[in-house]
């Protein structure tokens, strides 16, 4: 977890890399109860313009949330905000890198609002998700 004293504008958050596997997509479908065939039915998906199954956008977004949890811990879970756009699908076999950079830190009462630019890219450097994440870190949290 990032120590509050280390937080500064321009700082990169520790990246997370994940390989998208059909098995994970299927498990995500079970957990989320989202059984849209474009995610889990290869025969169906092959006949669509996408040409094959794609991961749920929310699965890939979970990687960004995971990166924020690793960086900010409970502060993220109890006060995080995400605002993203899905730019391209992620397919089985893709390696997704979730990354982030602190754009600015603003004081708000006893909290520091940390505004981050966040991004998921695939192995071809194509943007899959782009957007911002904001987390409020209390003065006595994420320290020491």
């Amino acid at each position: 977890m990032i120590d509050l004293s280390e937080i500064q504008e321009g700082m990169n958050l520790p990246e997370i890399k994940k390989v998208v596997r059909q098995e994970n997509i299927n498990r995500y479908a079970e957990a989320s109860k989202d059984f849209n065939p474009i995610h889990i039915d290869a025969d169906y998906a092959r006949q669509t313009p996408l040409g094959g199954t794609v991961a749920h956008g929310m699965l890939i977004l979970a990687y960004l949330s995971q990166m924020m949890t690793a960086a900010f811990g409970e502060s993220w879970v109890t006060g995080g905000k995400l605002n993203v756009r899905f730019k391209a699908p992620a397919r089985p076999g893709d390696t997704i890198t979730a990354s982030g950079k602190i754009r600015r830190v603003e004081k708000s009462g006893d909290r520091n609002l940390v505004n981050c630019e966040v991004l998921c890219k695939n192995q071809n450097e194509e943007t899959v998700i782009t957007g911002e994440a904001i987390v409020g870190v209390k003065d006595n949290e994420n320290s020491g």
Partner: protein
Amino acid sequence: MAEQRKVEYRQLEAGYQFPPSGCRVDAATVSAYLGAVEETSHLYRDTGLVPPMAVAARVMASLSEHISFPAGAIHVSQELEFINTVSTTDVLTSHARVARKQDRGKLCLLTIDLNVFNRAKKKVLAGKTSFILPGTG
């Protein structure tokens, strides 16, 4: 479980309120979710805490139980705010409302506001989700 009656997206208008939807994200579901996304944070290991993205995923699935989306619907954007923690024993109620429906020629942009409350009526999650769909004009 009784089949939910789905609303055809072409019939939706701004202000349309979907019926509230109840759900739980129990320990087995959390375990399946953590496995699917390969999340290893200690925050979720045997603590009863539900990852907020697992709540969001469940709420999105509830929404899809209410709307009939055509093949080719594209989830284009997502806003989420994690307000209070959720435990695996919490019973949640999600409220969804059409915030905007905008026809743009052959395409239609549909934006839905989401709010999720626990049994004590405390808001735990808020969000906004947008889809691009075939135009309704």
